[in-house]
């Protein structure tokens, strides 16, 4: 991998995370604070479209970004394996901390709400067990449930990214090295095939 390709890979990974968050944020069921329910079939279709797009973003920009990064970066001086690994770790760490810090201000209100849940659990349980009724804190519309769950997951993601996402980086480095070696093997096989053909023709 070249230096530029490593930086491109990092940029693509961060943009992949951003794409998933943007798609979740854009889902109409999520941002509309309404009580009445929309039609079921269009909602399922819409949810499927958003899920497919998010899965595509994860696959192309996080999981399988080597070919895309090569195309963007172009040719260049290939670094030694040790330098490659070190640069990939450093750039990914810096990039993911940036992403985490950018998510933090929006996640703080959710983080503040989390301790409040512990004070509401007892009255809620009392309502369910003794009064046999659904407590007010659980009487939410589907969009409010979606927004709350999304906010909670985003807060966890922000904390994990600020922590440096060590496991994700380790996986990404390992995966990148494996992908790179696979691509090199494919190229070597193709070159060997072409050379053999040339030799036969001559």
């Amino acid at each position, binding site marked *: 991998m070249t230096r530029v390709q490593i930086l491109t890979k990092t940029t693509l990974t961060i943009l992949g995370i951003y794409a998933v968050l943007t*798609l979740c944020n*854009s889902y*109409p069921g999520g941002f509309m604070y309404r009580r009445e329910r929309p039609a079921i079939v269009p909602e399922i279709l*819409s949810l499927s*479209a958003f899920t497919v*797009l998010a899965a595509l973003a994860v696959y192309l920009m996080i999981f399988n970004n080597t070919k895309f990064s090569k195309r963007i970066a172009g040719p260049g001086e290939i670094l030694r394996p040790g330098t490659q690994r070190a640069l990939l770790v450093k750039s990914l760490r810096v990039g993911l901390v*940036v992403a985490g*810090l*950018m998510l933090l201000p929006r996640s703080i209100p959710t983080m503040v709400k989390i301790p409040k849940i512990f004070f509401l659990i007892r009255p809620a349980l009392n309502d369910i067990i003794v009064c046999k009724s659904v407590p007010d804190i659980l009487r939410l519309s589907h969009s409010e449930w979606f927004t709350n769950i999304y906010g909670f997951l985003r807060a966890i993601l922000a904390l994990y990214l600020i922590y440096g996402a060590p496991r994700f980086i380790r996986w990404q480095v390992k995966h990148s090295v494996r992908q790179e070696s696979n691509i090199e093997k494919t190229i070597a096989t193709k070159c060997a095939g072409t050379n053999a053909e040339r030799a036969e023709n001559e």
Partner: protein
Amino acid sequence: MNKMHALAKIMLSGIGIFFAIRLIASIVTAISLALMWRGELPIFTALFWTAVFALCLAAVCYIFIYKSEQLAKRIVGTDELGEPDSPVKWLPVAFRLISIAAGLYCLHTVLWQVTNTLIRYAMYKPRSVPGYKTIYTGYAGRFLNVEEVLVWLIMLTIGIYLVCGAPHFVRWHVKKTLEQCKQPPEMNK
């Protein structure tokens, strides 16, 4: 193509992908709104906006991704630019810069939220329009709640700490990053 061109190309492609993501999300949102909330967004309006977003998407992809090399050359200038020296200890500097940028973003968010609340409070007229109270549910009757003030204080503290360079945070991250770099590659295991 020197390093500056390469970096400019990456940044331009990144910007292109960033806007492409937003536009794709907007297209799907417009279609979903038209299908799910009939009457809220008429189908022709949805189609019009879908066409507009699709055109913008095509333009963004063409300019920022397909023609990124030419654009990078135009922005950076001649090819004879000197190579920027590769800093040996760029990691602490990068983390410090990030901290300052994030701190500014945090402070900007606090400022925006405080201003927004103050403006809403100033504009709040309980008996002016029927149903007005429903629009400003969060602010009707209670101007400030403890939770909101707590959020602002936490954000303000974090923002000031980050703007100051977050020395402990930077040191801890540099240490952890270097430790991770020194770890043996798992592929060899």
